[in-house]
């Protein structure tokens, strides 16, 4: 079982929801922070990191002695990462997606590959919860290979909770694809609604069932609730703004530690997900109306 927590808008409370879901599940949970650009789960979970390993993409190295500048590598590459010009072949490692096509098709076997490091994966435990996260090298644009490396550590016997990055582009798609259910965290403001709509369309495009958690539900307006109703998207929980939660968060404490009564809220979210993934008609209904 894989549950991804996503949002569209940043700062809505993805990490707060993901971490408290994992803590409620305890030893059944594995928490994977796939927001590799700015991973935050470890600040709340305080895991003990037991091992770490670097992750990179293979990029081409040209053996100038063998290369005849035939141009085949340049034809194969979609990303302009390898370009034959005159009597040389130029490489642009930061554009390379590491597909290996150039090396595979080089008739002279003049291309070998070296690893360009993107970041690291760290694995450990936070109490009873298994913990994995990725840390992207600062300034690195290519997050998806690192996200895939984090997801490769998913244990099928656990309930994997994935904390996805904000937005709706490649890193988000990589983080949520393959999930059984996506929890979208939003705030009931025009900003939350705008970005939620974009993200919902992206997730439904992947064919993954989803539900919404409205965080700080007593601020803003009711447009998010109206949107969910019109698209028949279930609202899994509404968490009102609470000074206690905000104060706890500001000193690195879990939502569920600051407000233990919300344990019931998270159990309800989990039971709704269990129900949804057991084959109700939510997804078909939301598709039909879109």
């Amino acid at each position: 079982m894989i549950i991804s927590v996503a949002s569209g808008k940043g700062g809505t409370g993805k990490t707060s929801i993901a971490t408290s879901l994992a803590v409620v599940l305890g030893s059944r949970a594995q928490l994977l922070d796939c927001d590799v650009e700015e991973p935050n789960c470890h600040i709340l979970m305080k895991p003990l990191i037991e091992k770490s390993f670097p992750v990179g993409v293979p990029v081409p190295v040209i053996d100038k002695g063998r290369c005849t500048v035939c141009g085949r590598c340049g034809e194969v590459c979609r990303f302009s990462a390898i370009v034959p010009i005159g009597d040389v072949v130029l490489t642009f490692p930061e554009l390379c997606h590491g597909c290996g096509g150039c090396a595979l098709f080089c008739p002279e076997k003049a291309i070998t590959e070296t690893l360009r490091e993107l970041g690291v994966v760290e694995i450990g435990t936070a109490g009873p919860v298994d913990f994995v996260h990725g840390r992207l090298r600062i300034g690195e644009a290519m997050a998806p290979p690192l996200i895939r490396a984090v997801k490769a550590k998913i244990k099928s016997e656990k309930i994997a909770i994935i904390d996805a990055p904000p937005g709706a582009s490649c890193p988000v798609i990589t983080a949520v694809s393959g999930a059984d259910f996506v929890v979208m965290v939003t705030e009931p403001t025009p900003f939350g609604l705008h970005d939620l709509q974009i993200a919902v369309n992206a997730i439904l495009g992947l064919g993954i069932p989803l539900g919404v958690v409205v965080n700080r539900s007593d601020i803003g307006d009711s447009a998010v609730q109206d949107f969910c109703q019109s698209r028949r998207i279930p609202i899994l929980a509404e968490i009102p703004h609470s000074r206690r939660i905000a104060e706890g968060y500001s000193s690195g404490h879990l939502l569920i530690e600051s407000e233990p009564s919300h344990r019931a809220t998270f159990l309800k979210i989990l039971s709704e997900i269990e129900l949804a993934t057991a084959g109700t008609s939510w997804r078909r209904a939301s598709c039909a109306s879109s």
Partner: protein
Amino acid sequence: MRIAVTSTGKDIDSPVDPRFGRARYILILDEKGTVSEVVDNTANVNALKGAGIQAGKLLADRKVDVLVTGHCGPNAFTVLEAAGIKVAVQQSGTVRQAVAKIMSGEAEFADKPNVEAHW
């Protein structure tokens, strides 16, 4: 001498397009200043990344000697340098005016990129 000029339109009196990789058109002129080819650069305009590299490759394939444009980033410059193409940057006005400056020797050639990547 074959001169390439980035252009916002298809004819010689169009304004120079300040962008290189994502220029709308690239006009290629012969040594007399006559347009010999109009390259529609739509594919690079819409490229996710590597537009400057592809545009540089396009000029190398067409055996261009001089490029006249507004801005040239580091990857594009690397390609142009490898192809032995001289670059006049920060050019403006119409394509006709920009070419005249090259012909008269008034324009200077760049020895490095004049903008950052993804400018």
